[in-house]
């Protein structure tokens, strides 16, 4: 584990960069490995820790989470660390209880309305932001736009945590009920069957991409995809009549980009182009689908998964006394929503919000680059919001040296991996650290960002042990995916091995046979999507990316939570 000297930050400094004092303020800081590995550029790191800190604290207070005031966040060289803020006074816990009760009863009764209102609030703001002309508006208007978008992102995080805390409480309660009464928990296959067979906004995009690949075949355009490099496909299509039709028809490619193009290849980072700017990643996915052929995997398996889920629901309910089934059904439905929400929310929260933040800041980058204040527009990611703002009206500060120092620093800290999962007083006692986290009752940490300890089933004599997250067994070749840049390398039938996965990677899931991750828990992206695509997923192995190599043949058991290396090539 790295000592304090290793992580002491330099180059970038803002109020939420971890200080010596911060380090001592909590018994333990936990690495958000699900999102901040590989490390972020300075602007994104800043907006993540500011947004999550505000959102978590706001949500925990407004819900009245009895034992937790939210999560505090800090940045260390592009990585996010968090720590729960505990309510320790018993009397205060009791006082918060009334608010919590009122909120949760309302939440349970009116979920559909509540979620509907949230979606409406978000989309109304997004539509307004989307029509703002970032390239031609006067600088003071662009300044105002940047301010508005970055401010609204705080609201997005607040609603995000508010929904998550509420739903995950219910998810965790249902899990506890099943564990105590039936011996089933969120690592059991039966649990996984119960939590899948649902549609969500991201699958809508995958299905649409698949439809576009089928249309390309129907219009005789598959050779255009095959014969051109990814980046040349669209210009080539524009040259033919059939290609123009494919691009512009109803449910055609351009409509797809308008609807689903507000996404960044790595949902949580500003340094890559959104699909609305450059739709090449969408083209790559369509090419991969064309190479695979056949029906859309999700649709083909959907009916079977829905049937299995309904069966699992019946089985589980039948094991409870008749008299209890009413409220248990209600709780089970709420728990199932937590899974759907996890995927759906990415579309409404991170994807669009981060695309719009990038768009506003990039427009500022363009203006600075035009005046030679930075080398190129994309350099905006190395600046903090205040630095950008004070150089938009008026434009006169030369940031080239600052940016080049930060860039060098960024490249250097990106190589510094892995980062310690825990830092602070309890970092040498992972069990105590886990207890501290659980004391907060913060289910989001337990189910997504940090995950829980693995009990290795050593009797399996496997090479790696993790927590089962989606059932089934698969044999295939390893494909290490450490960043979105590696995604294009995936070939059908491979097994994705990574630290974590992002919702922007969802379209490759139909190509995969299985997934093995260093981190994660039952509500992580890979777990949810893996279950929907019915491929085995093992999470929280700790060292899959260091132990497994590209091309190795492995056997993944998502039911037992183990991985065997079968051969080295």
């Amino acid at each position, binding site marked *: 584990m790295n000592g304090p000297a290793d992580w002491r930050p330099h180059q970038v400094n803002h109020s939420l960069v971890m200080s010596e004092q911060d380090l001592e303020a909590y018994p333990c800081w936990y690495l958000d490995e699900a999102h901040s590995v590989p490390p972020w550029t300075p602007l994104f790191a800043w907006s993540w820790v500011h947004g999550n800190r505000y959102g978590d604290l706001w949500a925990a207070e407004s819900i009245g989470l*009895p*034992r937790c005031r939210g999560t505090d966040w800090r940045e260390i060289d592009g990585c996010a660390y968090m720590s729960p803020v505990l309510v320790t006074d018993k009397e205060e*816990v009791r006082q918060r*209880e009334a608010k*919590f*009760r009122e909120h*949760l*009863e309302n939440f*349970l*009764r009116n979920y559909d309305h509540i979620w509907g209102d949230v979606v409406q609030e978000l989309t109304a703001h997004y539509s307004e932001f989307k029509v703002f002309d970032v390239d031609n508006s006067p600088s003071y208007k662009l300044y105002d736009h940047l301010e508005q978008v970055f401010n609204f992102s705080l609201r997005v995080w607040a609603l995000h945590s508010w929904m998550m805390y509420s739903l995950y*409480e*219910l998810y965790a*309660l249902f899990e*506890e*009920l099943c564990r*105590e*009464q039936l011996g089933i928990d969120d690592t059991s296959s039966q649990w996984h069957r119960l939590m899948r067979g649902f549609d969500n906004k991201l699958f809508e995009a995958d299905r649409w991409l698949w439809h576009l690949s089928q249309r390309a075949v129907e219009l005789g355009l598959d050779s255009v995809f095959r014969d051109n490099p990814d980046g040349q496909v669209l210009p080539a299509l524009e040259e033919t009549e059939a290609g123009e039709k494919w691009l512009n028809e109803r449910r055609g490619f351009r409509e797809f980009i308008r609807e689903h193009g507000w996404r960044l290849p790595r949902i949580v980072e500003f340094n890559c182009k959104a699909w609305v700017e450059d739709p090449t990643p969408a083209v790559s996915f369509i090419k991969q689908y064309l190479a695979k052929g056949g029906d859309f995997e999700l649709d083909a398996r959907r009916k079977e998964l829905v049937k299995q889920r309904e069966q699992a629901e019946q089985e589980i309910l039948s094991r409870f*006394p*008749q*008299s*209890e089934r*009413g*409220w248990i059904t*209600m*709780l089970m439905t*709420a728990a199932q929503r937590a899974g759907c929400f996890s995927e759906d929310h990415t579309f409404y929260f991170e994807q669009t919000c981060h695309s719009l933040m990038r768009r506003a800041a990039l427009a500022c980058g363009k203006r600075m680059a035009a005046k030679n204040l930075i080398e190129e527009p994309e350099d905006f990611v190395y600046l903090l919001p205040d630095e950008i703002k004070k150089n938009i009206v008026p434009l006169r500060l030369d940031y080239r040296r600052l940016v080049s120092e930060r860039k060098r620093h960024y490249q250097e800290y990106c190589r510094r991996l892995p980062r310690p999962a825990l830092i602070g007083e309890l970092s040498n006692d992972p069990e105590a650290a886990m207890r501290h986290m659980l004391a907060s*009752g913060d289910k989001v940490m337990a189910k997504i960002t940090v995950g829980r300890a693995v009990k290795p089933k050593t009797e399996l004599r496997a090479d790696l042990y993790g927590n089962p997250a989606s059932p089934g067994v698969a044999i295939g070749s390893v494909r290490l995916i450490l960043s979105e840049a590696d995604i294009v390398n995936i070939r059908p039938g491979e097994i994705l091995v990574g630290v974590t996965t992002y919702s922007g990677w969802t379209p490759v899931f139909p190509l995969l046979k299985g997934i093995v991750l260093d981190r994660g828990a039952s509500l992580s992206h890979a777990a949810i999507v893996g279950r929907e695509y019915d491929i085995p997923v093992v999470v929280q192995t700790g060292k899959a990316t260091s132990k497994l190599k590209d091309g190795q043949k492995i056997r993944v058991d998502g039911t037992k939570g183990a991985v065997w290396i079968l051969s080295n090539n």
Partner: protein
Amino acid sequence: MSGRVVFWLREVGREDINQVGQKCAFLGEMIRISLPVPPGFVLSLSAFDNFMEKSGAREEVLSYLSSLGEKLSDLQQAEAASRHIYDVIKKKEIPEEICQQAEAAYRRLSQEFGVAEIPVSVRSSGQESNPGLFDTYLNVKGRGALLHYIRSCWASVFSARAIATRARKRLVAQTAPIAVGIQKMVYARCAGVLFTADPVSGDPSVAVVEAGWGLGEGVAQAKVTPDRFIVSKQTLGIKERRIGEKTVQVIATEQGTRVEPVPQREQDVPCLSDEELIRLVELAKKVELHFRGVPQDIEWAVDAELLFPESIFLMQTRPVVRAFPRRSAFDKPPGKGDTEHIVDLLIERFYR
């Protein structure tokens, strides 16, 4: 005198457990919500303490018990000790003040019914429910008999079972005080128990009623195979009806009670009418709801002379948690809404 000696049942509630014991406090609770409970009064826990102290009984009993020590966990030894203590207590004088107040209350209860000496039941009421551990005396009439049986109830703190139980729990040195409930006697045509949840499966959607001829002691002490009815608490429909072979009954006599054979033609006839059964379940639901949905074990009786519905009486209620060892901590108490119950479970977890 350290505390009040006499309380009327109609003036006590669950906050008075430490003055009048659980049984009487809960009877008071039922009176509060207008449920039919035979009227009466209580000799408080401090009356017991007062008696034990002033009469010198405590000192004598404690030194005797501590001389026996661990031997008392043996039931035979405990029985001998119990008989000895019983004699000690029987010979002690009840302090004058307690006598006067008990007599005054008894006189007043009698006057309320326009009789000189009203027949009463005398039951012990401890701070914790200890079904079967303490004694009950029925059909007690007159001042002398009343004081005699009050002393018997006090002595029942030292019944063989109570002594052995306490010895095993290493509680020898303490004497848990006991209150004594005195209520107008109900001459029951039939009586029994009612569980507001199935005592075997724990199913809280039904009430289970067991009934026998005569006084409730017959069913409570399992002297007969009672009639057994299962009633849906929601629809009040009778889901199951099993008529038992009720060969004997307990009846009141001038000197207390007696077990007597039931006439042949009445042995396999249901002793409760549907109307009475439904009424009982309705009342029991009110009790359960009042006790925050905790399933109740209720003793009831149907008076032989009064007309329905005045004939129905509730004699005692206590929570049955211990009767359901397999009942889940997750189960929803009756009367709770689904969302409310889910949130209750969540909140409960925050205090672990």
